[in-house]
């Protein structure tokens, strides 16, 4: 193994390692509480506490039947949150992320003949990861004598001896940019995406059927096999379209959903073994509406003093909320099933499932 190979191995392993880390602890402000680990001399100061780590995930399967409503609107109580006027919570699987539509001002030329499998060679483009999503990049180099183009989605099937073939889904959480004609020697990219947390395994952890080969059928004709890195199909495998780095619009498209501001309304107390109803306030700080047509999913995490209580993904209920007006705050009701064994103080974290995470957190006493 030479230095470059080891460097690549370290980069790839490091990226994979990062995606498998549990969310970091949340800093909780307790301005009138003296934690046991702070010296007396510093007791008067406000301190930062960190909720203790993750050990066991308790998951709630999604109900595929009718949406669960919060029922009769509860009246405000000293330990409850007023759900009057909130958007009802629904038990709905999180949709995949859909990037905003963009218009490239100067679309690059992509009118060459379609590349066939014999026009290109394939190589690994490494790994990239974020918030549980892992991208396995494949580079397609035009080794023919003439210009051709790779565009759209190829049909990709993951294969593994002794396992059923796995069809890769079109459309990925990772953004893809435009494609363009490939002169001889130029390359296009494709990302295969796997996830470590999803509806099928909302608690994360563990691995599903793993594949090490993919069969790629090209839009221009022909098929090629490629030995990929391990693809964990537990949460499915998705693909981007073919794209060329730097072609057309920037891959870092700004998503107005990431401009939303969040805060949580949590009750002071929650009873172990019973649902905790709370509210997420979603505010549009912009001067133009923010559409919820691409209704996002969200990630909910809670832990008590010793372990993770809930780590789940859901789809937001946008059914009657197509957009949030400028300056408007929409209150979404949320339900969290508190395990009967939970004790102490629970930290609740909530975030929209976007490449640029929008997130809020708070805490509640379990009693």
């Amino acid at each position, binding site marked *: *193994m*030479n*230095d470059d190979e*080891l*460097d690549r*191995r*370290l*980069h790839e392993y*490091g*990226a*994979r*390692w*990062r995606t*498998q*880390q*549990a*969310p*970091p*602890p949340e*800093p*909780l*402000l*307790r*301005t*009138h509480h003296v934690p046991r*680990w*702070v010296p007396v001399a*510093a007791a008067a*100061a*406000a*301190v*930062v*506490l*960190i909720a*203790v*780590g*993750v*050990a066991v995930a308790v998951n709630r399967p999604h109900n595929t039947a009718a949406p669960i409503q919060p029922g009769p609107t509860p009246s405000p109580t000293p330990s409850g949150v007023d759900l009057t006027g909130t958007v009802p919570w629904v038990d709905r699987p999180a949709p995949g992320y859909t990037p905003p539509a963009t218009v490239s001002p100067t679309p690059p030329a992509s009118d060459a003949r379609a590349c066939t499998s014999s026009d290109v060679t394939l190589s690994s483009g490494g790994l990239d990861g974020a918030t549980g999503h892992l991208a396995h990049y494949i580079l397609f180099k035009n080794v023919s004598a003439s210009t051709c183009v790779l565009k759209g989605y190829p049909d990709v099937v993951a294969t593994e001896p002794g396992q059923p073939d796995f069809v890769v889904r079109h459309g990925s959480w990772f953004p893809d940019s435009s494609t363009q004609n490939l002169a001889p020697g130029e390359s296009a990219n494709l990302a295969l995406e796997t996830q470590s947390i999803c509806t099928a395994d909302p608690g994360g*952890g563990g*691995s599903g059927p793993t594949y090490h080969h993919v069969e790629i059928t090209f839009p221009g004709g022909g098929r090629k096999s490629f030995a990929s890195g391990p693809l964990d199909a537990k949460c499915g495998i998705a693909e981007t379209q073919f794209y060329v780095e730097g072609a057309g619009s920037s891959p870092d498209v700004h998503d107005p959903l*990431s401009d939303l*501001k*969040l*805060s*949580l*309304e*949590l*009750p*002071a107390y929650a009873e172990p073994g019973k649902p905790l109803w*709370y509210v997420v306030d979603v505010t549009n*700080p912009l001067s133009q509406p923010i559409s919820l047509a691409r209704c996002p999913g969200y990630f909910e995490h809670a832990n008590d003093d010793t372990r993770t209580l809930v780590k789940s993904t859901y789809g937001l209920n946008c059914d009657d909320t197509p957009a949030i007006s400028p300056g408007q705050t929409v209150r979404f009701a949320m339900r969290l099933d508190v395990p009967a064994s939970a004790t102490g*103080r629970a930290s609740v974290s909530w975030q929209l499932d976007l490449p640029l*995470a929008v*997130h*809020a*957190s*708070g*805490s*509640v*006493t379990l009693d």
Partner: protein
Amino acid sequence: MTVTVVGGGVTATDDSHAADFTAWVRPHLPAMAALATRLTSYDDRDDVVQEALVRAWRRWSTYDENRGAPLPWLLAITADRARRRRRRPQLVVTDVAVESSTVDVDLERAIAQLTDRQQLAVNLYYFVGLDIAGTAAAMKCSTGTVKSTLSDARARLRGLLGDES
């Protein structure tokens, strides 16, 4: 992104200074947690980050943004707290946060045999994901020193991995 903490009798507005600190450190928590995990163990991660945050809070008034970005400053504190608690096992295959099936056991075993300084550089650059400049700032050295430290580390790793496959 704006984070507001409301409810549970805890409000960020109780102490705006503390709230400012929380908002300031929040974007850097993943990197701090990653480095703490790498330098100690997953079980010690939250304690190390907690200690680092308490220390950073106390020393926040001494932080000078003209002398560097927040992340390297916070990571240097995290590394210091991790060093004081260091009892990282030789292998991390039992870490809860990492599926054992995906752990590169040989590579982890080799990294564990690097010097502390080499391990810090490798962890900051490859596992936390900093660039060379960020790694240098966190290690309080020049970029040239980081490059040579990483080069030495890889040379050592190649030797240690020489027997595999």
